[in-house]
């Protein structure tokens, strides 16, 4: 199987693979930033004492968490152009789908992070005359995010791997690019092996970073 292993194939496929990697990284970055921002808003809604807000955020999380990501990608690919009224291209619909999907998961992580802050810390903030919002912003969220960093990054690693699902709407992410070259040049072993190594190395680096942060932020 490995006797005619040809590294040259991978070198020649470099530009295509790099283009794919850019899509993968763009999707990962946008979904992380957008997901955390929207996830924070959702988490605050979920924790709100105002019932309807909490209810809405809860159902949002339920809906996205009980749907396979691949279905969400499909739906947004077809639904977003209908809502917007014009075709917006696969990339944008996928960016929106990933952000909204990840927000549901980040919401739960952030909610747990906020709830991990002991009640007396909130009391201490309020007792100083801070408003509830100032207490949340200056005291609860900074500490909560510290506690959450490892879990947030673990979720980011999962997300990085999930981006390969965009092949269903014809986007060429890293894995799809590798797959195309593999079939085109009939070099399945080289390309799949290379893809596996790249995913492994990047995820391993991410995990090592998480481990370091865990030690750094341990309170």
């Amino acid at each position, binding site marked *: 199987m490995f006797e005619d292993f040809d590294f040259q194939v991978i070198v020649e496929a470099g530009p295509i693979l790099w283009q794919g990697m850019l899509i993968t990284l763009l999707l990962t970055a946008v979904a992380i930033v957008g997901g955390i921002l929207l996830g924070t808003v959702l988490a605050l809604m979920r924790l709100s004492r105002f019932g309807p807000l909490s209810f809405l955020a809860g159902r949002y999380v339920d809906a996205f968490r009980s749907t396979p990501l691949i279905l969400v990608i499909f739906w947004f690919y077809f639904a977003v152009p209908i809502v917007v009224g014009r075709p917006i291209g696969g990339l944008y619909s996928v960016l929106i789908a990933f952000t909204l999907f990840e927000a549901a998961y980040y919401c739960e992580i952030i909610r747990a992070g906020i709830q991990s802050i002991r009640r*007396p*810390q909130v*009391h*201490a*903030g*309020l*007792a*100083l*005359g*801070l*408003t509830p919002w*100032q207490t949340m912003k*200056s*005291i609860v969220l*900074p*500490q909560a995010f*510290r506690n959450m960093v490892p879990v947030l990054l673990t979720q980011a690693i999962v997300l990085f791997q999930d981006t390969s699902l965009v092949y269903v709407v014809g986007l060429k992410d890293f894995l799809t690019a590798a797959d195309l070259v593999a079939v085109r040049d009939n070099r399945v072993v080289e390309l799949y092996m290379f893809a596996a190594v790249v995913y492994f190395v990047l995820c391993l680096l991410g995990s090592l970073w998480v481990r370091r942060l865990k030690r750094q932020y341990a*309170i």
Partner: protein
Amino acid sequence: MIEVENVSKWFEDFHVLKDCSTRVDKGEVVVVCGPSGSGKSTLIKCINGLEPFQEGVITVDGTSVGDPKTNLPKLRARIGMLFQNFELFPHMKVLDNICLSQIKVLGRDREEARVRAAQLLERVDLSDQADKHPAQLSGGQQQRAAIARALAIDPIAMLFDEPTSALDPEMINEVLDVMVELAQEGMTMIVVTHEMGFARLVADRVVFMDEGRIEEDCTKEEFFGGERGSRAQEFLSKILTH
């Protein structure tokens, strides 16, 4: 200055405060004591609106705490509060802990806040700890820093919720010394504590609570002189003999 009239509070079915009434005048030091679970901490948390109560009226300097129209952050900014576990903010340096409310609540600029914080740290003998994080300080130092933080908003009264009960014995006095100084300077104080030495030294009055009720509310002379009820007698004999 602080008036508590017929206050009752329930945690769901549990009746935690039962028809409590007392008053604290300007400059008075009142020690609140009683067995665990008697409602002492809950009572003082009701005074600055950290815990809601269902019945009765609490007024602080003429402002009703339970009135939905009351601006609670503004009211709380006039009352300092100390907690059993200090509750310094662990993600901020000691100096920033003391500057936070000055900047966010009083609107002081950063420099002005730092100058005031430095003065307060000197007062509690922590000038050399300003740039450390709370976790790097001993318990006694943390509680003194918390006193500096509470004083930074220039409060008209201070509430102490068992300020020494989480401290090692050798650190209790360094905190009590600062509290005694505050009392002697005329600060209005309500102190939940089992430190009867502190009560004897600086308290004007002692309030004894049991099972959510204020059972005794008398001068310290009456309280320590033996003119107290049997429940208070039993409590005192327990904490003084062990």
